[in-house]
């Protein structure tokens, strides 16, 4: 069959896009997966060594710290953004006056980079110039607040800063969801004298499962790719107490010259992501069809 001139032009136009998809995205991902089973150190090396990089990785205490930090950080980040974001969406929905000012205030962090976010919070939390110093100067010389430099708490401060950055988007998603719910519900609930908070939690929010799915996915991908905010806030420290996989991969690629091992870590990141996302998606899609 002969293609029309227009169809041929359509394909020609798509060439850059095809290069991006098959070379820069999927080709690169596959190449990194391949490097994870090679002996690559400072430069890519094509000697096949099977699962050796993975075994080194899984024996590495530092990797497990980074890997479990991803879950601690991720759990807090999701819980924080969702609770605060949904809470603010409900509060703004209750507001009878203009919501523009408050909405702008809750949303603006989203326009800032995670580097700016991390650095700003690092100064506020810094014991020698931030909150600790302020409270001590105010007449409480024994006050102690050094979470940012404490091995047990540093990852919590990272979550705290990231929540500050991510809440606005969740709020705006849920606010538009809440506003799209049939207003008849409010009339009916007033007649039945159902309190407003019960309308939100028992009637409106359960209808917003699709919004929740979107929000969880968006936040989840943020968790896996978190790098900037950690570098800016704690740089993985003290020691490697607040390291995360994305930072581990970067360091093993470019600072330690262990490309094979770094690639193995990157592959584990992706596999973890798929292992969490697929069942959730499957469950939600099944639910929708049922």
């Amino acid at each position, binding site marked *: 069959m002969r293609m029309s001139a227009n169809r041929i032009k359509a394909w020609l136009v*798509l060439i850059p896009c095809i290069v991006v998809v098959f070379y*820069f995205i999927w080709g690169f991902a596959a190449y990194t997966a391949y490097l994870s089973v090679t002996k690559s150190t400072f430069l890519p090396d094509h000697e096949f060594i099977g699962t050796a990089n993975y075994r080194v990785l899984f024996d590495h205490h530092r990797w497990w710290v980074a890997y479990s930090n991803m879950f601690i950080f991720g759990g807090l980040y999701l819980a924080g953004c969702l609770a605060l974001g949904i809470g603010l969406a409900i509060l703004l929905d209750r507001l009878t006056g203009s919501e523009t000012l408050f909405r*702008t205030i809750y949303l603006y962090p989203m326009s800032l980079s*995670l580097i700016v976010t991390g650095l700003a919070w690092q100064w506020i939390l810094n014991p020698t110039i931030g909150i600790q110093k302020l409270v001590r100067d105010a007449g409480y010389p024994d006050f102690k607040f050094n979470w940012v430099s404490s091995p047990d708490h540093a990852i919590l401060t990272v979550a705290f800063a990231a929540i500050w950055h991510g809440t*606005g988007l969740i709020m705006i998603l849920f606010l538009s969801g809440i506003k799209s719910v049939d207003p008849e519900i409010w009339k009916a609930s007033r007649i039945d004298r159902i309190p407003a908070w019960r309308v939100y939690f028992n009637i409106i929010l359960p209808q917003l499962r699709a919004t929740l799915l979107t929000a969880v996915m968006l936040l989840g991908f943020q968790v896996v790719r978190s790098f900037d905010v950690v570098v800016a806030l704690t740089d993985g420290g003290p020691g490697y107490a607040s390291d995360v996989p994305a930072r581990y991969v970067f360091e093993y*690629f470019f600072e330690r010259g262990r490309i094979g091992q770094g690639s193995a870590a990157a592959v584990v990141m992706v596999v973890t992501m798929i292992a969490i996302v697929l069942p959730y998606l499957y469950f939600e899609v099944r639910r929708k069809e049922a």
Partner: protein
Amino acid sequence: MRHYAHRTALLYGALFVCALYFLSPLYVMLVASFKTLAEVRGSSIISLPEVWTIQPWIKAWSEACSGLECNGIRPYFIATFEIAIPAVAFSVLLGALNGYVMAKWRSRSADLIFTLLLVGSFVPLQLYLIPLAITLRELNIYGTTAGLILIHTVYGIPLTTMLFRNFYVALPDELVRAAIMDGAGFFKIFFSVILPLSPAIAIVAVILVFSGIYNDFLFALTFGETGKRPIMAAVQNIVASSYGIKEYNVNIAAVMISALPTLLLFLVAGRFFVRGLTQGALKG
């Protein structure tokens, strides 16, 4: 009635407390960047300055040191725009063309490419770093402005394609059919029928892609040219690498300046941000 007033006060109280949490970093940075170093070191960065000074802003702009270079953040600021402007132009134009083909010249293979593009946009960027380094070396543009323009064009395409495709799908197919009847070809239809309908989505795409490139750290850090690194990598480096006495006020002013472009963009065009992000979010 009194019960009602009580509730409104509570509502505003809660909104106000949350507003303080969200505003506090901005407040601290503004206040601290107008203090003298002696005052920052003598008191916390949080209290109001006794003497206001603009010196930290001037020093951050033109004198602060990143490694051995002490030209402030100005060169990095300019370098970032040199990368962002062409990359935004390329990825938005390519995204519009891709979106046009995928929405109005649909075929099974075009749909497949779109799916692969979307799913691929969720791959963590770390997986691209080593192959990217190899590719840029081969092309002889490793650590150059051209290299970063290429990177940001390439990885901007999934977002721009998605935005334009979803926008064009909603345009009636009759527009294209009528134009074909009139004898218009593929490009004629794009430039004289489709493109004139696109300003709204193009603004959204430009704002989102620009902010993404401006705020990028990973690629900037990995592939930036020493002395001409993009702004976020430069600012992070300035803050992390100040030797001797840490000039907190200058560092904070540098971060504040680096935050201004996207912050102002948000304040001026916030509704486009929101539209883009919620549309972007709803795709998956």
